[in-house]
Every structure is written in structure tokens, then in C-alpha cells.
């Protein structure tokens, strides 16, 4: 019988299961991984350096492109840091809109994750189901901000504009009948809030569908249960946050422990796992989707009842309205200064974190009093999860590498920045 020697296997950077451009150099012994060396940086765009050369507001769009499946949460982390520096507090309505959109983003992210994770592990069907719901939320993004993905919707001091009164509808086409069209536009007759409410009504049923496909699926469990478990102490030492930490049984969620926006006014639960394996992380994320739908519903109720401004009344930070700009000299000057120079922040340094779908997303800004950040450091949650990959994967099989990458929920936009 031939003796297997250890050998080195190159995985990626162009591999469908690598979720982007991950290159893994695996030291194998037969089919068992002895050591994994992730090579990252193939998507490095020096976002932080670019931000040093731009006024604060011009970098908001770059934040979307970090973790490009949880766009608005990244913006939130960045915008909160600027607000902390400037000492401004957005109006309550803006806070509710942000909270609602953060949760929409969380569902978007987790839907993407369930779909592709299933795809990696061999469950094609879940992908088709999750992308159906994702499309609806993308439409919400588009209705609210004008862009399906890279929204640039949050601004220091609030959000760019109030929620629109109507939801875009499908148009008549020779390829669909009147009846089909009516059915497609059923939830789109009212405002964005009506559409979202309808979504939240049916979404728990959709999650049930995904769970029917996966949760008790024998193959799914064989591929996920007891794969790459991490204990709670170790998870903390490795810098885990978000579902990776909660999957290991540590009840830690910034939305509860260090509430920002209006999370302290809302009623929701934090799902926690026990074993810290890939299956528990799956369960945590699925439960989080249900909680997010609950949060969105509460935000909708509040937003319906409380109209009001959506950004602070501070012309030094927020540009004046178009009418005021044409009418009023002061506003014209503010407008001109804001768009040619931006605003200067007081000197100092701040660190602002939000509970992004993947974990603690934070920005650390060093300011020397200029209109551009002196140093911007982004803390991407996946970076730390991926760093622990070597330790988690040792002794597992090659096929488990794919499971683990899926379970980390890695997105290279933010790992490489």
C-alpha cells in the first residue's frame, strides 16, 4: 500500500467556494488538513488611504464597498464615528430609519449567506429561495436610496432623505398577463413602509421554508455538525464577534450591550448557540433573521406615527435644501463651502462600533482638525475570523474547508479593504 506523504494544495484565488479572492495554501496529509495559510489582500484597494485624501462625506460610498453585502451597516459605523467627533446627534426619526435599514441589511446579508453557504455545501435549492426574498429587499434599498447595493444613504447628522411615499411598481409587459402583473404589484400599491410591513408579515414563513430545506436535512447536518467547533474562551481570545462569538455561546451583542441608534427602545432577543460549531452558527444566523423582522416591524409602526426631520438642522454639516440655496445667500455660501471643502472636525480620535451582520464593524478615526480624516482604520469583523481559520481547520477534511469558509461568512471587500 502506498504511503501518503504530506503535500501542499493551492486553493483559489479563483475558486467558486472561496467567496471572492481567497487564496489558501493547504498542507494536506491525505485528505486531512494539517495547516492552512490564507493569503489575502488580492482585493486590497487601500480604502483607508483613499479616505485620508478625501473630505469626510466623500468616503461614505467607499464604506458600502467594504462589506458589499451589508452596505448600510458599514456606513453606519463610519457615520457614527464622524458624529461622535462633531458632537451631533441625529433626530429620532433618522435613528429609527437607520435602525430599520440596518436590520434590512442584516436580513440581506444573512439571506446571501444562507444561499451561498448552502450552495457551497451542496444544497442548491436554498439559494433560489433566499434570492427571491433578497430581491424584494434590494427593491427597498433602491426605493430608499436610488441604488440597489451601494446606497450612500447615511450621512453625518441623519440620512440623505426621508422614506419615499410610494414603492416603484412593475410595468406592463407583453410577457406577463394583467393578472400576473397585479399579483406582482400587490404589495407595492402603498409606501415603502407598507411594502416592508408586508415583507415582514410573510418573511417568517420564508425562513420556515429555508429551515425545511436545511435545518433537519441529514446531509446538511452531516456537513455542519461538529465541524470546526470553537469554545467560548478561545473565541474571545481570537477576537471573534457577532454570530461567530454567539455561536460559541457568548451572549454578546452590541445592540443590547452598548446600544446605539434606537436599539434600546426596541424589543428583540439575542440568539445564542452552545457548541460553537458550524451548525450552531447557522442556527444563530437563521434565528437572527427572524429577530430582524421583528425589529423592522416595530420601526415601521413608530415611523408611521412620527413624521419629522431626518437630519440635523446644522448647515455646517448638512447641506441646505435646494430651495433655500437658490433663495438665501447664507444657504448658498454653506452649500458652496460644504461641496468644495466639506467640514472640519475638532481634533481628537474616536472609535465607533456597530453590530454589523458579520460582527463588530468599527471605524477608528484620528483627526487633526482638518476636513479630511488624518487616519481612518476600519475594523472588519471577518478579518479576525479568517485569521483564526488555520486553527479551526486543523485536523478537518478538505471538504470542511469549504464549510468553514461559508460559516465564517467571509466577504473580501472588507477583509482586504
Amino acid at each position, binding site marked *: 500500500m502506498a504511503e501518503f506523504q504530506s503535500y501542499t494544495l493551492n486553493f483559489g484565488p479563483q475558486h467558486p467556494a472561496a467567496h471572492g479572492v481567497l487564496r489558501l495554501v493547504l498542507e494536506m496529509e491525505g485528505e486531512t488538513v494539517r495547516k492552512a495559510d490564507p493569503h489575502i489582500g488580492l482585493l486590497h484597494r*487601500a480604502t483607508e488611504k483613499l479616505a485620508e485624501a478625501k473630505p469626510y462625506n466623500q468616503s461614505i460610498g467607499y464604506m458600502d464597498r467594504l462589506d458589499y453585502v451589508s452596505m448600510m451597516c458599514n456606513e453606519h459605523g463610519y457615520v457614527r464615528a464622524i458624529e461622535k467627533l462633531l458632537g451631533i446627534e441625529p433626530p429620532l426619526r433618522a435613528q429609527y430609519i437607520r435602525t430599520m435599514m440596518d436590520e434590512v441589511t442584516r436580513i440581506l446579508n444573512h439571506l446571501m449567506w444562507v444561499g451561498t453557504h448552502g450552495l457551497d455545501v451542496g444544497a442548491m435549492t436554498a439559494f433560489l429561495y433566499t434570492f427571491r426574498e433578497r430581491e424584494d429587499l434590494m427593491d427597498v434599498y433602491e426605493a430608499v436610496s436610488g441604488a440597489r447595493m451601494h446606497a450612500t444613504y447615511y450621512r453625518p447628522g441623519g440620512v440623505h432623505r426621508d422614506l419615499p411615499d410610494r414603492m416603484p411598481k412593475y410595468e406592463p409587459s407583453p410577457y406577463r398577463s394583467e393578472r400576473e402583473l397585479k399579483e406582482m404589484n400587490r404589495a407595492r400599491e402603498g409606501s415603502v413602509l407598507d411594502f416592508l410591513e408586508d415583507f415582514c408579515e410573510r418573511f417568517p414563513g420564508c425562513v420556515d421554508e429555508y429551515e425545511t430545506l436545511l435545518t433537519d436535512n441529514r446531509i446538511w447536518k452531516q456537513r455542519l455538525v461538529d465541524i470546526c467547533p470553537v469554545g467560548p474562551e478561545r473565541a474571545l481570545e481570537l477576537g471573534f464577534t457577532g454570530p461567530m462569538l454567539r455561536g460559541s455561546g457568548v451572549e454578546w451583542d452590541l445592540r443590547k450591550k452598548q446600544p446605539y441608534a434606537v436599539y434600546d427602545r426596541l424589543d428583540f432577543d439575542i440568539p445564542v448557540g452552545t457548541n460553537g460549531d458550524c451548525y450552531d452558527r447557522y442556527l444563530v444566523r437563521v434565528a437572527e433573521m427572524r429577530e430582524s423582522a421583528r425589529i423592522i416591524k416595530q420601526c415601521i409602526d413608530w415611523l408611521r406615527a412620527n413624521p419629522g426631520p431626518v437630519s440635523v438642522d446644522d448647515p455646517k454639516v448638512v447641506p441646505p435644501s435646494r430651495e433655500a440655496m437658490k433663495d438665501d445667500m447664507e444657504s448658498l455660501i454653506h452649500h458652496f463651502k460644504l461641496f468644495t*471643502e466639506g467640514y472640519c472636525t475638532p*481634533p481628537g480620535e474616536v472609535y465607533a462600533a456597530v453590530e454589523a451582520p458579520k460582527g463588530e464593524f468599527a471605524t*477608528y478615526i484620528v483627526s*487633526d482638525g482638518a476636513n479630511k480624516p488624518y487616519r481612518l*482604520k476600519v475594523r472588519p469583523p471577518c478579518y479576525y475570523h479568517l485569521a483564526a481559520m488555520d486553527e479551526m481547520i486543523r485536523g478537518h477534511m478538505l471538504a470542511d474547508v469549504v464549510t468553514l469558509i461559508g460559516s465564517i461568512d467571509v466577504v473580501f471587500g472588507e477583509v482586504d479593504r
Partner: protein
Amino acid sequence: MADPESLLEQLRGHFGSRLIEAHLAYGEVTIELAPGDLVPAMTELRDLDAFRFEQLLDVAGVDYAAYGSDEWITEQATGSGFSRGVTEPGFGRLGLTGIYGVQGVAESTGRRFAGVYHLLSLAHNHRLRVRCYAEDDDLPVLPTLTGVWPSANWPEREAFDLYGLIFEGHPDLRRILTDYGFVGHPFRKDFPLIGNVEPRYDPEKGRVVYGPVEIEPRVLVPRVIRDDNRYRGRPQSASTEDQADG
């Protein structure tokens, strides 16, 4: 969240003269430690019941070489207008040194490169920022924290890659984000935004070669620092004021 003021008091009480600086600004506690004290102090921060910082969340390299410099005088009126900030050589456009460099970095101050560590305590629900300046600007060396928190591994590699900070004792100090064979440390303030070299295909050699960058560096919005009366009297970081003076 726990009260940051009491945390600051506890830190002052425990570390005493080992704290080069400690202050509270924007509701965040920042302390500064000497490189020699870093590892033992961090171990205490992790283990002592009063602190219990279980997590090292982030390590950020910072290059303070250009701190407080701007590209446009805002104190008095100028006759040359907007283009002054845009066309004349400023570090934002060209970097401090390098092939387009406009000026050299001043002699070693020992306050140029810093590692900034963000800690989180789940037990007490508080955060802490620790800053540690590397003593030598030409060869910035800091002790590694991989022995205290394993999560320091990759961010320290990143600070090495982008800022050239050397973490003594790090088990695997390789470049992480930049390309294989990259030269220089791109996030340093003397590294131009457009880079130094760019790859292109050489039809004669039949392969990709590196040559000097051909794109023009430009600034759309000059960097300005305005003295704003509204921010007077705000709690500011003392160390940043030192930097502004120097």
C-alpha cells in the same frame, strides 16, 4: 456601559507612573504606555479583575509624520485662490518624500509611529484605547501582543505591511495585504497616494514589467484646517495637541 471616568481612575491608580499619559475624550479612555511596559501591562489589563479586557479588537498603525499640516492657509486672506491648494506641491498630492517627494521627514522624534490597540471587556462592558509609540522612527519596533491575545496576529502583520512597524517576537511577520514582492510601506505619509510603480505589459519582453507610475497625482479638495470657535473648550486628546505644536 460602564462609567469611563471610574475606569480612568482605576487605571491611574493601578499603573501610576507607568502611564505616560491617560485621558478621557469623546467618552473614550486612552492611555499611553512605553514599549517596554506594553506586554506586562497588557497582560495585567487582561487578567486583573478590575479590568478583565478579554478581547483585543483592533491594532491600528498610525504615522504621525504629517499631523497638523494642511495645504491651504486659512488664517489670512490669500490672493491666489483655490488653485494654490491644488497645483502646488502638497504632501496630500505627492507624499512627503519618495520620488515625487516635496520634503523629507524631520529627524527622528520617537513620536512618529504608533500602534493603537483597542480593547474590550465583556465582563465590565468597557472599552480602552492603548497607544504605544515606537522609539525609533527609522526602524520602528514594538513588542508583539500575540502572546497575550492571539487575535493580535493578523492586525500586527497588517501594521507591519502598511506602516513598516516591526513587532518583535511575532511568530509570522509577513506582508499580508499588499502584493507579493511589494516594495515600501504604502500607508506611510511619505508614500504617494498614486504609488511609485505600476505594472504594464512589455511586448518586447513578452511579460508584465513594473515601471514608474504614469498617472498624474491630483487633489480635488485641498486639505484645510480651520480653527472653529464651536470646538473651543472641547475635551481633546493631550497627545494630539503635542503633535500639533511639534
